[in-house]
């Protein structure tokens, strides 16, 4: 009980990182790196499990739960080396620990926001939507959570940019790299929701393809179909 209360308090802190405490008293909210990682794991697992509950299959819930933290972690790990070299080149090496902290805060915030949307997702599932709208709804929740995480990231970056305007460019570089890698990672890790007609599986057989090529094919298909 006490542990879960502490967890919720940390989740609250993750949303307020960098801003003043409620009521305007005390120093700005701080959160250790470890608790941020913990939040990503726990809340990511939680939302993933709810997202995978569409067909009410426990194994799919477990798989989807594992996939959300995996998605965030691997996409970050793949993008960080590039980001590190870029920051060094633009003379921002000494800020890099703070920058990484900001990135983790944003991702912790993302998972907390996702978790807050989990009851709505569960409600939508229970109300009996079919598979395609369920996918669309989850795209919406991820979109909303990304917007929220962006706000947290920008708040953390405000001081950094004030210190050195080159951080603004770096923030853009991070978003481009991370989204580029993240989209493909999300594509590879499909299915997140799990088509109830198909058996439960961790990876789809055709998952080792390219998200961007697939999207281009869909668009071209639609265009040639309309002709």
């Amino acid at each position: 009980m006490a542990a879960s209360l502490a967890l919720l308090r940390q989740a609250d802190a993750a949303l307020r990182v960098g801003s003043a405490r409620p009521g305007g008293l005390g120093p700005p909210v701080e959160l250790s790196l470890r608790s941020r990682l913990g939040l990503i794991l726990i809340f990511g697992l939680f939302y993933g499990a709810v997202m995978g509950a569409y067909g009410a299959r426990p194994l799919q819930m477990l798989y989807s739960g594992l996939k959300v933290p995996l998605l965030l972690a691997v996409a970050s790990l793949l993008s960080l080396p590039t980001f590190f070299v870029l920051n060094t080149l633009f003379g921002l090496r000494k800020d890099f620990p703070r920058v990484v902290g900001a990135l983790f805060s944003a991702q912790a915030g993302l998972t907390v926001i996702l978790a807050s949307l989990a009851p709505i997702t569960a409600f939508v599932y229970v109300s009996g939507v079919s598979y395609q709208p369920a996918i669309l709804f989850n795209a919406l929740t991820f979109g909303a959570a990304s917007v929220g995480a962006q706000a947290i990231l920008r708040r953390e970056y405000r001081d950094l940019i004030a210190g050195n305007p080159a951080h603004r460019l770096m923030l853009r570089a991070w978003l481009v790299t991370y989204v580029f890698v993240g989209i493909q990672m999300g594509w590879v890790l499909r299915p997140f929701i799990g088509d109830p007609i198909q058996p439960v599986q961790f990876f789809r057989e055709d998952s080792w393809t390219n998200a961007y090529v697939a999207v281009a094919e869909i668009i071209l298909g639609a265009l040639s179909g309309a002709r």
Partner: protein
Amino acid sequence: MAIVESGAGGGRAGWVQGFRDLDQILRGDRTRTDSLRAGAVEIAPGRLSRVIIALCMIHGLCMGTFAMFSRNGPALGQVLATMVKVPLLFYLTLLVTLPSLYVLNAIVGSRLTLGSVVRLLVATLGVNVAVLCSMGPIVAFFSVSTTSYPFMVLLNVVVFATAGFLAQMFLLQTLQRLNIAQTLADALIPEPDPDAPSPLRPLSDEFLGRRVKTIFRVWLVVFGLVGAQMGWVLRPFIGNPNIPFTWFRGRQSNFFEAVLQTIGNLFS
């Protein structure tokens, strides 16, 4: 000015020092105006080159991952070939262009000696390869999870272009700094932010020297064209899954024609 440093600093200490050199170049410590006053970027080209070649080979491994996971079974030969070819690409380009770059620089009236031109270009190569190699994990990830050959070709072109662009920015700013450090050796121009030097940040808002701009533009064109075509001659780097592995392909067409064609192939 000796190009070959005395006592190449063998063994592990040499490697560590090489990586430290590269790190200092990236941080901008080696291109502060006060350290450029001698008229060259103070690096040991040999020691740095070892690190550059190692990083090139790592990136080659990342590029070759596509051939490892090819649907026709892993092509180990391709991986090996790519690991050899990436360092070759950079150093052959350097070798082919160095004489013309140096002569041009001398004609325009720059005070850079051959030794400083070599050091400057190796330092630029260091920046290029560091950025390139840092994108290696992303390339490897897409190589593993993608079956589309045209996509991989374009991704690699974008990765190489990004690294090349940043390296060119480094080259331009360092040329400008060398110019300032030499012409105004006595006047002190402080680093805008001494705590956080950046090799890419301009020293002042004034326009770049005319000479620097001329040298840079011509170097850019010569190095870029030769580099792109060198990449074309050395292909395949990635390995088309539909074609059996060969060390080299026939010498037809050129790089620029091929990129346009690949963009077309992506959607067919």
